[in-house]
């Protein structure tokens, strides 16, 4: 009997190492649809907004929810006066706002920010791919939002 246990324990240490290695790799399979749903987002800012951002920020870009559980408005949002602010958020995400680097190209990110700043706000200087690259290289910290949850 003792022998049996020893064998078991010895064999285990090898196994648990393998186990540890396996568990160190993230990206485990979540429950998810599986293969399928390969749809490409549009190239143009307005369409992109409607296909993606509108899901959360709403068609009128006024957001929704209540204090402490809110999707902020992008319309009339003075945080967007600084285009870098929006670029950082789209590249890195923050809280419930996902990053979009794995879904949109630099050009698409530039187009959609240009649209949001120009259409729902009065900031008309375009955001370019060069802007996206500049922020990508500088890698600044994610700005706080003082108005989001409130």
């Amino acid at each position, binding site marked *: *009997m003792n022998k049996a246990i020893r064998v*078991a324990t010895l064999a285990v240490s090898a196994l648990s190492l393998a186990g540890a290695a396996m568990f160190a790799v993230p990206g485990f399979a979540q*429950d998810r649809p*599986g*293969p*399928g749903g390969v749809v490409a987002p549009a190239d143009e800012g307005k369409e992109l907004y409607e296909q*993606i951002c509108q899901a959360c920020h709403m068609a009128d870009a006024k957001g929704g929810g209540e204090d402490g559980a809110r999707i902020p408005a992008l319309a009339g949002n003075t945080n967007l006066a600084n285009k870098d602010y929006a670029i950082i958020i789209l590249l890195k995400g923050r809280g419930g706002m996902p990053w979009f680097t794995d879904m949109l190209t630099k050009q698409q990110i530039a187009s959609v920010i240009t649209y949001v700043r120009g259409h729902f706000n009065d900031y008309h200087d375009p955001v370019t791919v060069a802007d996206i690259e500049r922020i990508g290289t500088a890698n600044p910290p994610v700005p706080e939002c003082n108005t989001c949850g409130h």
Partner: protein
Amino acid sequence: MFDNFTPPTRRDLLTMIGKAGGAAALYQAMTVLGHAKDSQFMGPPKLSGAKPGATVLVLGAGLAGMLAAYELTKAGYKVQILEFQGRAGGRNYTVRGGDTITELGSTQKVTFAPGNYLNPGPWRIPYHHRTVLHYCKELGVTLEPFLQINHNALVHHKKAFGGKPQPYRDLMVDWKGHVSELLAKSLNTGALDTSVTAEDKARLLEAMRDWGVLDKDMKYTKSDKLGEQRGWERPPGGGVNGAPIANDPFSLSETLDSGIWQTLGFYAEHVMQTTMFQPKGGMDHIGKAFQARVGKMIRFNTRVTKIAQDDKGVTAAWTDTKTGATGETKADWMVCTIPAPVLNQIDFQVSDKKKAAVRALPYGNSVKIGLEMKRRFWETDHAIYGGISFTDQAISLISYPSAGCFSDGPAVLLGAYPFGVGAYMLAGMTPEKRIQAALEQGSVFHPAEYKAEFLSGASVAWNRMPWILGCCATWTEESRAAHYQDLVAMEGRIVLAGEHCSYYGCWQEGALLSSIDAITRLHQRASAA
């Protein structure tokens, strides 16, 4: 008399090892003996001996929160739960006729017939999610098989077969046939002679002939033998026309166009392997079963707005979402299961490291759409009983109900379950437009019946659920390395729990395992204090 010579049963051995080495040793031993490899579950946490009068405040009445309340109460703690919604269960959620779905920006009234339902969140439980299965049994939740793989369900790619969906079976058999033919060809031309021994080469050729159903020339061609896997032009019958007629396999290019290897790979994943289960009558029976034990401790419609702690205890400030009244609840300890997108917006008295972890954890998105059809045409007209048909359109898939096969009357099928871009597209639409899109896209599978048999629909876009603003935590390799331990570490009197605090993301198993781990640590600290 001969007892000493009887080899110990596995159970005896495990008990002994458990006594000698504690839970971790037991888990490791179970692994070697062929049990439990696939779950860290070691049985419910047998906590006991809470200090008299010790109190715990649980935030959120999802599965993680309710498990915490259930087990901590057993250990002797006095527990209270604060819950944002007017219902318990959290993401463990089922909608039925008469229910109202409230999203940011819209409300829907569900009109499904009695007995019909949609599971907008969790819908399947793999056989190795031992924690979920354990509590289902302990709490009396009846499980039934969830029909995961259906060889007769369909696979659709816009660019394959002129957009005509094909049965999973045909594509799977053709894939294996073509791959076998190619491997046999490589072997026979000697291309692999430096990689395989002569003996293995002979065995491989035999295997390819058999597995791939190749003909005598090692070609993948039409034959009766192939018909036995792939189905028939005319199936075997009785009497005069009894002899079957085989059908033609698809070409290699066509098979490649269908992307079938992705479906095969998906079903090969551990969490997608059968046997798969679902609670009879709707996934929310698990939440309801927990609620039957801890319901009295829950304060509903109570949105926590601020979380504080000092060396004496914890305080949660809240707003009653029905009356607008505000209040505070105090306790000695806290288990917080509030999903990260909401927690990130709450004034939360913990270290900057933990705040940074919460902030770095956006949630993915998904949408589920239930379509109630007048009758089960997929069964009666197409011999499809349960399972999933995949498409590369935004809806991603449709799935046929596992329960109630052969019954008459209306039935609900899952008309969409996308992640990613497709999910954002559908979520951004009004509920009516979502249904239209689901009908339009789903018609590709069953053009004759899909729109004609439609009765009503209901959808849930997870990013618009006011109490979570997303589906499940999105971890990356980098964010795990930078933040995971900070997120789960107990800080002062507060410990976080939930799906997001696990390596089992987007599974109920993860929520429960995380909760067990969190309350075990909480109990250790409370006992030492």
